[in-house]
């Protein structure tokens, strides 16, 4: 096997253009995909559950009433809503992929807003899936929520402005059910003026009493003004619930994605090409006559392709770490994830190579398979029908791309499914595709 490996390396060394392309092309694709992660469907589907009690639909702010519809109507202008009965249904809709995310308004939503202040109201957003999907959902949902928030903020702003007007010009405000008549800053000014005019008299203290009173009220209520304005900044706080898959920041997820894509292309193309070359050069029939047992021939190709690809991607990962902060303490895990993934891609490669008589046919087959696999593994669950999503999940599980992505992501970002689970999955695929390649070779060994 050593001689065959050496021979394949010599062949690669003499195929500079091919090898160059093999490295540049996947890296370019990987970077493009990794960093051009764009938006999904226009109108995402949200499972919606409101716990707000009947009759509690209004937000009361210093005597003014704002209907909560200001918030929800704005939200559902740009979102398809699926009304559900309880929290369990929200989780179910999200888990099945029928809804991209779930939105739950708590019972105290309006009262919290009514009270305002730092204790501001919150909503709960439920979503599912890997970093890419979560990031997509979060950006979609949070932009929708921000629009609704802004609508609410505009309404609250009007209230605040009115409030400030009363302080300035005088008028009635409602504080905890008590009607207060404020004389306003302007009138206070006039009053102080006249008080100064009759200074050094006993009446002075009497004249200044309302001013004192106003000062007290102002001091007491200026905090409320601050509270109101504070609420205006972000009236509704979003509480996130992640069903599965812990969160990786998008940029480090993109790194895992870029690494896995490069690994797949280099490995699959190289392994399938090296094997098909034996057929193209007619040397396979020489080797098949007992010079080289099929299993060892395949193992050699898998190891060579996997080794080359692992070196290229590992170097790429080290290069990327200069720009994206990665945890270097996990470098051993990176290596394990890349090495095992490389073997799985190599096994897929030789399975493809065992079907082709020429390198060109093998490369075409490899590309035609690898590209859709990568895209399939990235389809967010809420963006297709649940049945189709199940099919995609199965297809993704029987090819090495998704588990390799999980492994690399887990190694870099400590996400779930854990590295161990992903590596075991890859191990099973190595065995399956290795066996498929052997069967493929045997079919042609005597032809």
């Amino acid at each position, binding site marked *: 096997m050593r*001689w*065959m490996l050496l*021979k394949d390396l*010599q*062949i690669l060394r*003499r*195929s500079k253009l091919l090898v160059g392309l093999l490295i540049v092309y996947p890296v370019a694709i990987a970077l493009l995909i990794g960093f051009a992660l764009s938006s999904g469907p226009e109108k995402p589907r949200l499972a919606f559950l409101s716990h707000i009690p009947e009759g509690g639909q209004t937000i009361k702010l210093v005597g003014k009433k704002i209907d909560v519809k200001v918030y929800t109507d704005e939200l559902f202008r740009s979102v398809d809503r699926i009304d559900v009965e309880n929290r369990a249904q929200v989780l179910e809709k999200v888990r099945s992929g029928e809804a991209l995310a779930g939105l739950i308004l708590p019972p105290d939503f309006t009262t919290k807003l009514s009270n305002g202040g730092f204790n501001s109201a919150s909503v709960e957003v439920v979503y599912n899936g890997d970093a890419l999907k979560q990031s997509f959902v979060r950006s979609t949902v949070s932009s929708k929520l921000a629009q609704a928030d802004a609508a609410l903020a505009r309404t609250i702003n009007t209230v605040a402005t009115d409030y400030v007007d009363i302080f300035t010009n005088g008028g009635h405000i409602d504080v905890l059910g008590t009607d207060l008549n404020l004389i306003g800053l302007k009138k206070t000014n006039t009053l102080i003026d006249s008080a100064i005019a009759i200074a050094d008299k006993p009446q002075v203290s009497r004249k200044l009493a309302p001013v004192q009173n106003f000062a007290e009220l102002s001091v007491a209520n200026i905090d409320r003004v601050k509270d109101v304005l504070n609420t205006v900044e972000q009236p509704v706080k979003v509480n996130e619930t992640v069903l599965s898959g812990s969160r990786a920041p998008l940029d480090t997820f993109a790194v895992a994605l870029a690494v896995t894509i490069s690994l797949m292309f280099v490995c699959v193309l190289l392994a399938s090409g090296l094997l098909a070359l034996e057929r193209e*050069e*007619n*040397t396979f*029939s*020489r*080797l*098949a*006559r*007992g*010079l*080289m047992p099929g299993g060892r021939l395949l193992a050699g190709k898998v190891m060579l392709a996997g080794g080359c690809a692992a070196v290229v991607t590992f170097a790429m990962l080290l290069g990327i770490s200069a720009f994206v902060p990665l945890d270097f303490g996990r470098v051993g895990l990176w290596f394990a994830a890349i090495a095992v993934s490389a073997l799985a891609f190599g096994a897929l490669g030789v399975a493809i190579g065992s079907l082709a008589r020429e390198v060109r046919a093998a490369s075409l087959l490899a590309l035609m398979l690898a590209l859709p696999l990568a895209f399939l593994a990235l389809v967010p669950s809420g963006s297709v029908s649940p049945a189709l999503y199940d099919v995609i999940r199965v297809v993704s599980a029987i090819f090495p791309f998704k588990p390799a992505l999980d492994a690399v992501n887990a190694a870099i970002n400590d996400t779930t499914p854990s590295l161990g689970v992903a590596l075991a999955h890859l191990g099973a695929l190595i065995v399956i595709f290795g066996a498929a390649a052997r069967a493929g070779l045997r079919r042609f060994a*005597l*032809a």
Partner: protein
Amino acid sequence: MLAHTAALAPSLTVQGLSKSFGERRAVRDVSFDVARGELLAVIGPNGAGKTTLLSMLAGILEPDTGTVAQPDRTTARIGWVPQQTAVYGKLTVAQNLRLFAKLEKVADVDATVRRMLEQTGLEQRADDELGKLSGGNRQRVNIAVGLLADPPVLLLDEPSGALDPRQRERLWGFITALTDRGTAVIFCTHDIAEAERHAHRVLVLADGEALFNGTAAELKAVADADEGHDLEQAFVGFLRERGH
């Protein structure tokens, strides 16, 4: 030269070999044997089944029925030179020879490679990439790879087709040297004159059937050749008489 008589133990015995590709019966019930040091030419028109027959002897192709046996040295691999060159275009001549010598577990790799380079007259091209050689030179390397292990039985599928006359003479020179040392050689050819000149025996194959097995002189006699007609004309006449 060794006598090629039936008294010698056969190096290879072929019994009732048949092979079909779908409906097409490429080889039908072919039986013969080859003695040590014997040179057997398999002649026949295009598509007669020569390559299919040799592939079965080489173990590349599983026969539908029939057996191939090496009575004396059963473990030794039969040497095989395929019709289409089977060497690595991206390796040099020497690298190809060395690789296959190692895979064949030849005792002294360097000496064997040197000997093969010398026999094929390719010492000057030893470090050239095979893909950049002429077709004839590539064929010379292809033949050399088949000879590396010094096999007891050697199969050559149209070995001289791409060679110039000088290289042909050279090839026959070392094939004759091999048969003199006891190697049994089976080769396919369209070149009847070559078969007549070098082969001890000819096997005529047409549409997968073995129509004749004997010496060139016997073939001429069977074909009832007129005086002055050569073997080629006898051969064509022979096939025509039998409806091929």
